[in-house]
């Protein structure tokens, strides 16, 4: 085989992207009747290309028609409804959006050298600032909690720990094994499981 390090070689079926840490939370966590914007897609190459060509592309505004704890998810893109199976939906990463703010930035005027390319970064910035998940907070950085995603137990567990909207969270360090982060909230240090940390959306001024 020739040394061709395109996407087909790099990413096996089902494997994550090399840069798995990306903003957004899985589409499976979005609630019914919510508006979200797709930030990135982390499935295998073929499925991603399929989703993108169907209109579930990074930058697309989706309206969640129905979402439940099990079973596939129904979303609206423009006037089309799509049923997406849970496994695939988990790989579609989204951020909250509003229905009014349809394409805040005109992508046609996108300057090419923005990081991560293309209009979507600019567009996301314009709408949400630098929102990231708690998992991605760097050592020593402080972020303000914008929202907590997910449902039921996860959210209430995080709330009980003092992670509420508007609270300031400082990253002490992150641990590889077991996957978790140690953060400072209102002067108290606590350990949060990596999976839970993915549910917390923060605003950071870098």
């Amino acid at each position, binding site marked *: 085989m020739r040394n061709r390090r395109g996407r087909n070689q790099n990413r096996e079926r089902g494997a994550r992207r090399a840069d798995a840490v990306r903003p957004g939370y899985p589409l499976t966590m979005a609630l019914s009747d919510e508006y979200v914007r797709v930030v990135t897609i982390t499935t295998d190459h073929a499925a991603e290309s*399929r989703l993108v060509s169907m209109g579930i592309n990074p930058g697309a505004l989706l309206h969640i028609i129905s979402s439940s704890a099990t079973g596939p998810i*129904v979303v609206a893109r423009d006037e089309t409804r799509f*049923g997406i199976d849970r496994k695939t939906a988990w790989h579609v990463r989204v951020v909250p959006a509003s229905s009014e703010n349809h394409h805040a930035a005109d992508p*046609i005027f996108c300057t090419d050298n923005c990081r991560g390319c*293309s209009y979507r970064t600019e567009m996301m910035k314009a709408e949400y600032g630098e929102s990231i998940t708690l998992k991605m907070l760097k050592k020593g950085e402080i972020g303000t909690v914008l929202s907590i995603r997910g449902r039921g137990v996860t959210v209430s567990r995080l709330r009980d720990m003092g992670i509420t909207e508007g609270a300031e969270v400082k990253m002490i360090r992150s641990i590889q094994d077991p996957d978790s982060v140690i953060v400072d909230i209102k002067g108290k240090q606590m350990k949060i499981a990596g999976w839970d940390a993915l549910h917390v959306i923060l605003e950071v001024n870098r």
Partner: protein
Amino acid sequence: MNNSIPVIALAGNPNSGKTSIFNALTGSKQHVANYPGITVEIKEGKARSGEFTAEVVDLPGTYSLTPYSPDEVAARDYLLEQHPDVVIHVVDASNLERNLYLTTQLMELGVPVLIALNMIDIAEARGIRIDSEALSRILGIPVIRTVANRGTGSNELLYEAMRMAMEGASWVPVDLSYGQLSDDALRILKKKIVETDLLTDMVPPGWLALRLLEQDSHTINRIEKLNSPDGDEILNISADLADRVFKEMNDETEGVIADHRYGFVAGVVKRIKSNSSLNRVYLSDRVDRFLTNPLLGPVVMAAVLFGLFQFTFAISRVPIELMEGFFNWLHTVAWNALPEGLIRSMIVSGAIDGVGGVVGFVPLIMFMFFFISILEDTGYMARIAFLMDRIFRKFGLHGNSIVPFIVSGGISGGCAVPGIMAARTLRDPRERIATILSVPFMNCGAKLPIYALLIAAFFSEYEGLMLFLLILISWTFALLSARMLRSTVLKGESTSFVLELPPYRLPSMKSLLIHMWERTWLYLRKAGTVILFASVVMWALMTFPILPADQASSLSGNELTRARLAYSIAGRAGRAFEAITKPLMGFDWKTDVALIGGFAAKEIVVSTLGTAYSMGEIDVDDSSSLSQRLADEEGWNPVTAFALILFTMLYIPCIATIAVIKRETNSWKWAGFSIIYTTGAAALVATIAYQTGMLFR
């Protein structure tokens, strides 16, 4: 292109109304349903505009020119290899942004393209305004507004397409910008491709460069097959460039390029579209919250299907009795009118009773098709697929497998041949083959008469319930067999499932009746040709060689007819099998003969039983129906009947199905496997059912 007739291809997303436009242009009546993926074959027709004729080609729906599944590969290869004179891109006006993504790819390819802005009425009803002139100006492509199912705009569309074709519109690839870095990379690649003249006779160099930068595996494979040093060099360059873009942009090239296409589209849409209403939750969505609910949905689905069967049986009872009465009358009239002899036996026992057995169930088939058309046209079928995905996944199939299953008779009354072809929408070959091999277990239209006959004879009190049970049984077997195949010979991961859910629509009576009639007509035509012929052949097999006179003279009445049948070719073959089937499954040799005939077409099982049991008849005026005769026949009881139903449900697919399995899997191995596998399963299941049943009798 001036001498031959121009070729117009229809391309567009699934469910955007391509087939409706095709029908409007060519005046044909291809099947249109309210769910995506119904067209998997390339269909051709002729369209006339004034004195000019053009060939119109309907391509399978495709979301992009980066093909995902075999039907999309067919669409793309057609565009690349056949070079149509004009491509009409059918765009669903309600979903402009998503549909224009394909337009950008068509523009990159450079094929002369014309946009049919379809279903503009629905878009306008939703408060979406589209400035089609501005769209045309920005893209530099003619845009025609159409409402295909009402035929609005189809004349202008045809005229414009003809004009473009006649003028010999040339291929002009459009260069979009994909960002500085990608554009630089594309320039390098394009220069190299032009220098080495790689595939330039087939595709524009710019397009090839783009595909290579995207690292499209189809294109890479194609160039690798050329085995030229130039091709290899270009592949290496493109891999390096793609890698560079990947590192710079922190995203793979295909993603980067797709983002820019969408960026371009979003810019265009912003200028030409305005939404007056933001109320996006329609009645359709509210209904969907109930019908696609993971708990409530399946309950509603079961209720709908069960109700459908009950109703179909109830409504078709009287017409079926009338049909039976008619054939009995015909039987008696022909019997009395014709002189005794072989001719009378052939016409009455062979033709009339054979065909009558099959045609008698036309009312049932007709109503079944009518109700299935309702499910299709309202859009509920897509919800069934959606609900079934979770179940399918557990059995190693894909949500898209549901379309093949339903087309083959998942709700009863389909055909496995188009069903197997519908499996082309599946991307993964393993999932596809598992689907193809499980689909023949479904209850196709040809099996229905057998069920109806035996249900009427032995289970007449529970008609709807019985059919519902049979549907469940066939699904159970199909799914279990899929699971078994997927965990043994066809192991592999499941692929992702994204299904377009069309909005609910009120079906028009006209289209329902057309669908019903078309399918019923196919059934009738088969009964009048193949089944008639086969019935007569089966009659001959059951008559010749004639019992020698010296043996016949010692017998009389029932004994004589039985001895005559037993002496015939079919009788001997049946007797050979009876030794196995009688103790195991309770099938007598007449049934065995019918089952052998069923290999040609499943309807023949019923027609042969009709012939076999009418030949044994002595009393001329006995005009009881076949189901009554079976019910009275010694050796037949509900257990045998049930075992026979199971056997016919599962055993060997008919010749046409075997042929299409061979074609679609491209191997005799799978076709042969299917024959052995299904017949083995049928024998096993029928034996278990019969033996268990007899224990409790």
